[in-house]
């Protein structure tokens, strides 16, 4: 578990949480993206982060993944892999090679890596587009390739930045079901940024709501269903309740401006 420390150094974190942010502040020049944010995620817990545009959600994920350092506070996390908000497929690789990239980086041989990626792309509804060049894919297809790539990295922590943002309702529901299935089979620690409160309530064990910039934690809502129970439906009362409370928290945080 790597520790990244901002200005005020603090004592070591407990080890049961796989991701832990304590009093983290992150500035870009005059812009304060995050202020005094503390979040921790236990092993195999799925935590959704929702918040207004520009509230520092992507910044938070990059902090967790060690791609940025906090200006104050501390961040401690096991190896986390980021699915960036912009898919960042590499144009010199086809869909399959893009998805298989982390396997190759881990030293895998190309045929074996492509085989595993092939299966995953199929599950994500991309069968037939394995050999498409990146610019021949639609927006939603690109995003799904990026999701496959992230999963194949095999890191203990997944930091997903709007993984299904470009998907239509049906494809999205499928993808959510698929992700829930994957996490039920092989649990992982997940930080999920989403602009869809329902998605948050459906997939997460806890929903963290951020305030508008500078992002602070407004509330941290447990969904209250047993950990590991991932087969939920949007109509589950717990899901509906959390969804409503999160929406309310968001509205409240946005204040009179909304």
């Amino acid at each position: 578990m790597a520790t990244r420390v901002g200005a005020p150094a603090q004592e070591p974190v407990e080890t049961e949480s796989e991701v832990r942010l304590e009093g983290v502040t992150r500035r870009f020049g005059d812009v304060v993206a995050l202020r005094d944010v503390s979040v921790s995620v236990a092993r195999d817990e799925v935590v959704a982060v929702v918040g207004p545009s520009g509230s520092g959600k992507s910044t938070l994920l990059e902090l967790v993944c060690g791609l940025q350092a906090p200006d104050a506070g501390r961040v401690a996390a096991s190896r986390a892999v980021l699915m960036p908000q912009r898919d960042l497929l590499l144009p010199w690789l086809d869909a399959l090679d893009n998805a298989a990239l982390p396997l190759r980086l881990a030293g895998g041989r190309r045929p074996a890596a492509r085989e595993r990626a092939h299966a995953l792309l199929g599950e994500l509804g991309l069968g037939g587009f394995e050999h498409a060049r990146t610019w021949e894919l639609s927006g939603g297809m690109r995003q799904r390739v990026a999701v496959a790539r992230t999963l194949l990295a095999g890191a203990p922590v997944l930091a997903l930045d709007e993984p299904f943002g470009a998907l239509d309702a049906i494809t999205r529901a499928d993808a959510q079901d698929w992700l829930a299935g994957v996490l039920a089979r092989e649990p992982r620690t997940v930080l999920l940024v989403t602009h869809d409160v329902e998605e948050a309530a459906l997939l997460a064990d806890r929903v963290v709501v951020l305030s508008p910039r500078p992002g602070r934690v407004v509330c941290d809502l447990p969904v209250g269903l047993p950990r590991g129970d991932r087969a939920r439906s949007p109509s589950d009362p717990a899901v509906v309740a959390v969804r409503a409370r999160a929406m309310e928290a968001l509205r409240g945080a946005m204040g009179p401006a909304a």
Partner: protein
Amino acid sequence: MLSALLVLLLLGGWEAYARLGSVDAFILPAPTQVAQALWDDRGLLWDNLLVTGQEVVLGLALALAAGIVLAVALHLSGRLRRAVYPLLVGTQAIPIVTIAPLLAAWFGYGLLPKLVVVALVCFFPIVVTTLDGLASVDPEQHKLMRTLGASRVQAFRWVEAPAALPAALSGAKIAVAVGGIAAVFAEYTGSERGLGHLLLQSIPQLETPRAWATVVVLAALAVFCFALLALAERRLAPWAHRRKDPVT
């Protein structure tokens, strides 16, 4: 079509200019005279082309290898870059005549000093464009590689190298086009054969048409090498050359 027309027009104008005696034939021969020389001296030109061609190909290979290795090294280490890059730029300002005796002293009079000169002239454009290509990689792609746990070498292999490839090929095209003339300079540093030697010999002999015929052969060599590389470019970096306009 337009290409052929333009060339014809150019040749026609040149012929007229030369024939009208605006300038002495010893200074500017007419294209027909040059063509005649091309035909008459075809054996001589061919033999010397083989010599110079060999120098160009081997020298370029040396330049490419050295240029790319250097560019990568300078890219990977900012300190090395700050230390070595100015020196590299400086090398481009060294006229061959100054170091020719040194080259002869070190490498003798055979093929080697020619290769060194060709490589010295050609490696620079490759270093500059490759280095600039490597430096202009999208920072977001670097982040991606870091989050996927790629090592420095892997980030280079999967992101930097392909991203810099088109720029590096730009440099290689410049190198390949000036490779012929570099070999000519190299032959000026002493040789009995080659197109450069032929050119130098034709000056005191006032063989101007032959000199221009030699230049035509040199130009053909340059265009040939350039075209070959442009072709390679489309195969090596298809993503940088996708169709721009789906609607005609």
